[in-house]
């Protein structure tokens, strides 16, 4: 009986240690995946864009990246408290107006932000492209986002293309990367 109890304790101890190691490995793998995306893009690769499904900022349903397959997607990570985002927003809206009829979707991902503040921001800057809210920042780790704004481009086939733009995106960067996203099928 004592031997059986000892065995159970040993199995439990080994299980707990194995679980902790698995958690640690999972965390490392997530970080590596994010690092791997940037490295792959820099080598000219087109890694699959990490999936997400997030609620729309206005609360009317949700948007998943998978549902946008077949269109080029501009993913812009932002927050209402981010100063450079204020400078960038009119440029994004203007580009959205230029490209919206050409099979391109802009998705703003509002991260680590109060929904109310984000709504005021959207209203103030007259943003009309779809905005989702990621209050918990669940997408940050997957994309390796460390600051705002940051912009990624997804091809029609759901793979990342072009370059990862950290900081306010320029018109030239938008034009070039959207062209590549549209070419990716």
């Amino acid at each position, binding site marked *: 009986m004592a031997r059986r109890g000892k065995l159970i304790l040993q199995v439990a101890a080994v299980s707990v240690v194995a679980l902790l190691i698995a958690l640690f490995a999972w965390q490392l793998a997530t970080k590596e995946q994010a690092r791997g995306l940037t490295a792959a893009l820099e080598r000219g690769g087109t890694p699959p864009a990490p999936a997400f499904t997030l609620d729309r900022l206005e609360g009317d349903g949700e948007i998943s990246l998978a549902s946008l397959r077949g269109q080029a997607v501009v993913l812009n990570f932002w927050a209402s408290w981010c100063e450079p985002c204020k400078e960038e927003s009119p440029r994004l809206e203007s580009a959205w107006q230029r490209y919206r009829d050409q099979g391109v979707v802009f998705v703003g991902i509002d991260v*680590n932000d*109060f929904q109310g503040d984000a709504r005021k921001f959207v209203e103030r800057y007259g943003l009309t492209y779809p905005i989702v809210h990621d209050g*918990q*920042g669940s997408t940050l780790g997957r994309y390796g986002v460390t600051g705002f704004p940051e912009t990624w481009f997804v091809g029609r086939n759901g793979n990342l293309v072009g370059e990862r733009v950290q900081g306010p995106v320029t018109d030239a960067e938008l034009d070039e990367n959207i062209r590549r996203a549209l070419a990716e099928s």
Partner: protein
Amino acid sequence: MRRALVLVLVAAAVVAVPAPASEERPTPADIENEVVCPTCHTTIDQSNAPIALRMKAFIRERIAAGDTKSEIKGKLVAQFGESVLAAPPRSGFNLLAWLLPLVGAGVGAAVLAILARRWRRLRPEPPEPGPSSNGRAALTPDLDRRVDEELARFDA
């Protein structure tokens, strides 16, 4: 059985801590050290990140509006998720985070107690008075008495 009951009672006491006075009428400091800044991952009382400043302003607004501490923290969780709390809530799956350290301490104490008992049992008994340390046989009582008498005479 009694030990298990004690453990359960201790766990229940920790989990069912009575609500502090700051619950109904909290000050900003009561909440700011229990909420984490989502961008810098320190509590917001130690952060001047833009979102931390905004959260501090939000907490003041809600206190002024008459919200309780739990209500304010609940609203922050609704915006930023449970990871915004410096300590996990004492309910549901998160209860494990509170109970596991107690269980671990209990198991550790039990293992120590068992080991201590076993070591005590294995410890050799103190030796009976036997042969002298020089390896020779101990003196017989008669010889011992005679040595004492000789020594006494020598001292005199």
